């Protein structure tokens, strides 16, 4: 398996046929685990990290139920390779920018990833397209059980799974759902959503872009509390209450736009399409912003000639590391903006 095989295609988590996928892009569950009797990463020597990496890598690669999987050495990988994996949501920025022996075991279908020596010894994650939190839990729970039979996890009866940061303590579970909420943004209702989320102990982060800035109205919603509430309860809340409610609000906002702001809406979509079809230089920020508007236009039935698959593909192909990997060379920002514009024109015209 080579990373260039990944860079030319769309991730499986962008599946337009998945449940509620016009609004919910994907569901993900992450479990944080550490080995019993070993220091946490901050206090590990290089040789201790090496030992942890080796033993966890062997255990995970030996699990037959995972299908086709491969190991990626992050310590010795190139910056473009690391960035590509970040753009595809397979590893965290934290793992990419860390130090010492570390790596990831990734499933060929990109729906499973195990990061070794990130903030904790092991960070398992399972993804599914659309709203599929329960399915993710079933899958990751089985994988976690199989690993837990072969290694002993750091666990206390009082605090549960022991993690390097107390914010992950207990279940070590982080459920994250990636949502596209352009109509809530257009109708100025994001603040309401953020306030409600905070009251319910949820975190909302912008998906693309640095830090908290949300480019293109993609948001990742996740649980904050990991102690004193069971995994199944968190999963059930996300699957049956929280996310369906946000989907409902986004739909109401979309209907409202269709009735009250149809000209504004159509103008926004038409401008996005016109720019994407003809720009000669386009930054990743601008492309993301315009593709988001176009995605909304297609999902609301305002644009018929472009498929949602094309848009999903372009979200990935126009990202910096993808452009460079597919071109086979390092490009400076201006060269990337030219190539990005070319890619967009070729796919949309």
């Amino acid at each position: 398996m080579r990373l260039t095989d990944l860079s030319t295609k769309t991730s499986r988590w962008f599946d337009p046929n998945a449940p509620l996928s016009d609004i919910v892009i994907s569901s993900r569950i992450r479990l944080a685990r550490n080995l019993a009797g070993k220091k946490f990463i901050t206090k590990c020597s290089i040789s201790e990290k090496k030992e942890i990496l080796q033993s966890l890598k062997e255990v995970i690669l030996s699990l037959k139920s995972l299908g086709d999987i491969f190991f990626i050495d992050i310590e010795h990988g190139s910056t473009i390779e690391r960035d590509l994996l970040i753009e595809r949501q397979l590893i965290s920025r934290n793992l990419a920018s860390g130090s010492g022996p570390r790596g990831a075991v990734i499933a060929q279908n990109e729906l499973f990833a195990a990061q070794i020596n990130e903030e904790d010894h092991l960070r398992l994650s399972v993804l599914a397209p659309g709203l599929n939190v329960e399915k993710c839990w079933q899958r990751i729970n089985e994988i976690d059980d199989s690993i837990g039979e072969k290694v002993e996890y750091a666990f206390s009866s009082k605090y549960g799974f022991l993690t390097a940061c107390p914010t992950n303590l207990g279940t070590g579970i982080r459920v994250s759902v990636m949502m596209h909420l352009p109509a809530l943004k257009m109708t100025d209702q994001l603040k309401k959503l953020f306030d409600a989320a905070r009251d319910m102990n949820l975190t909302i982060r912008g998906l693309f872009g640095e830090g908290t800035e949300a480019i293109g109205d993609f948001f990742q919603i996740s649980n904050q509390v990991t102690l004193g509430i069971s995994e199944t309860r968190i999963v059930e809340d996300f699957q049956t209450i929280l996310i369906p409610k946000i989907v409902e609000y986004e739909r109401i906002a979309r209907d409202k736009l269709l009735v009250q702001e149809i000209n504004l809406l159509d103008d926004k979509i038409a401008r996005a399409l016109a720019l994407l079809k003809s720009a000669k230089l386009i930054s990743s920020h601008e492309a993301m912003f315009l593709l988001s508007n176009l995605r909304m236009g297609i999902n609301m039935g305002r644009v018929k000639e472009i498929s949602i698959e094309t848009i999903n593909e372009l979200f990935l192909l126009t990202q910096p590391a993808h452009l460079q990997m597919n071109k086979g060379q390092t490009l400076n920002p201006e060269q990337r903006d030219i190539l990005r514009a070319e890619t967009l024109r070729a796919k949309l015209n």
Partner: protein
Amino acid sequence: MQCEICKNKTATVHLTEIVDGHRTETHLCQACAQKEGVTIKSQLSLNELLSSLIAAHQQTGETPAQEKIGKVCSDCGMTMEEFRKQALLGCPDDYNVFESDLRDIIEKTQDNNTTHVGKVPSRTAKPVEQVQEQNQIEDLKRRLDQAVKVEDYELAAKLRDQLKALP
């Protein structure tokens, strides 16, 4: 809602301050908030939130006596000083070594929860049922303590009965 200072623009910054148990709310527009030096971030990251909690904990002066002479974990060499800087612990045993210092931080970041509920790995020292039962007892005891503290005797009696009913 209007900004309380300029009485013109819509208030988008809502500040809640609790000093000595007294709560005050201030509602300002973005421009006035900046003038007043109230800077906001739309979302705090968990680590930032944790660091600010740790710092707040430090300022309350509730630091136990032993910590002043600098408790050090004999397994990994971690100190509370170091934890405050990076918000990451050094080994699983730190949860025992620094239990009294961490309790407050754990409660604040975990919505006042203190005891694990949920999955228990197959390879543990104690059988799964025993762990879950023990956790249930601990959780009830904690809630009972809290109920007594806030003088909610009705709830306390209920919790005491639940504790008695356990094997």
